[in-house]
């Protein structure tokens, strides 16, 4: 199972939530599968989906799901201690771990080799870390939302990308409609 198939599976769950989506192909896939004003698409700044998501969760009460990648989390590994030590129970960090840098041609990441991000997250102090296979993402995500506890989900799946066009929406429009959805 590859990331786009997981996103298709969980799109009905994501539709009702605030979602901060990782740069590059993950945002393109989510945009093509089910564009929503409640989606914030990152068009730059690899690594910061988890930080933007945490900041958003700490600033307001609605649930926030940050869809991240293993390569992006490795880029901003300092995010895990920050998440662990500033607990926002309305925050879910969902790391789609396909062991590769998808947007740049599926080069292997260290998470695809010896590094286990779920153990890193635990060692950083994250108290609810769930690892699952791609096909179980929906039920794990729903359980995390229902638990109302800050949760890190590491979804193991195959590397590979669906072919979708780049997002041409103006960044200020993405941001403005997202902020209106946050306030709604």
């Amino acid at each position, binding site marked *: 199972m590859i990331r786009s198939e997981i996103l298709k599976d969980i799109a009905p769950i994501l539709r009702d939530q605030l979602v901060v989506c990782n740069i590059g192909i993950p945002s393109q896939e989510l945009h093509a599968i089910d564009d929503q004003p409640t989606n914030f698409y990152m*068009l730059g700044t690899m690594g910061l989906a988890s930080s933007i998501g945490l900041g958003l969760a700490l600033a307001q009460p609605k649930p926030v799901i940050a869809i991240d990648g293993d390569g992006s989390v490795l880029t901003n590994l*300092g995010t895990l201690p920050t998440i662990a030590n500033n607990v926002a129970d309305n925050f879910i960090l969902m790391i789609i771990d396909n062991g590769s840098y998808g947007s740049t041609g599926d080069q292997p990441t260290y998470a695809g080799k010896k590094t286990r991000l779920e153990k890193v997250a635990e060692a950083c102090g994250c108290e609810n870390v769930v690892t699952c296979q791609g096909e179980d993402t929906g039920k794990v995500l729903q359980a995390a939302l229902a638990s109302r506890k800050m949760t890190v989900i590491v979804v193991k799946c195959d590397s590979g990308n669906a072919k979708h066009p780049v997002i041409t929406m103006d960044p200020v429009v993405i941001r403005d409609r*997202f902020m209106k959805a946050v306030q709604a």
Partner: protein
Amino acid sequence: MNIDKKIADDLVANDVSFVTTVPCKQLAGVIEEIEARDDIFHIPSNKEDEGMGLCAGAFMGGKRPAIIMQNTAIGVTINTLATLIQYYRMPLPMIISYRGELREPVACQVEMAVHTKALLAQLNIPTYHFHWQKDVEEFDNILKYTFMCNKPVAILTDANFWGGYGDQ
């Protein structure tokens, strides 16, 4: 005048309630002051670009954010400033300790200091330089300006402004 208290007071008066910081010897007093305030949520960052991501999220969540960092971090955060804060047009006051300026005792700090204003100018980031204690009187206006125009704004605070480094 207590500069640390004045800066925290102006932040609160301008409804800035979400502040991220990285450690800094010069800014230690203001970081301590912000930590002590009930009306400001203080979240330490491990790295300045991470902090800017937190601020971006907090802004979209309805809070007014600010970041407190060193000028060396300009070298770390250029991509984040360009492709997140500026690209999505978000306001971000950056209170920056301007290491490597007058009264600096560590030679290496000068290397980034000589690039700091040029880099900020290249990014078209409005930049203010606090050299004398009275310069802090502008801080309230700078905050109002930042949230009026939705831009990152740099406030460079040098050693002279903070009263030097003591006996070094």
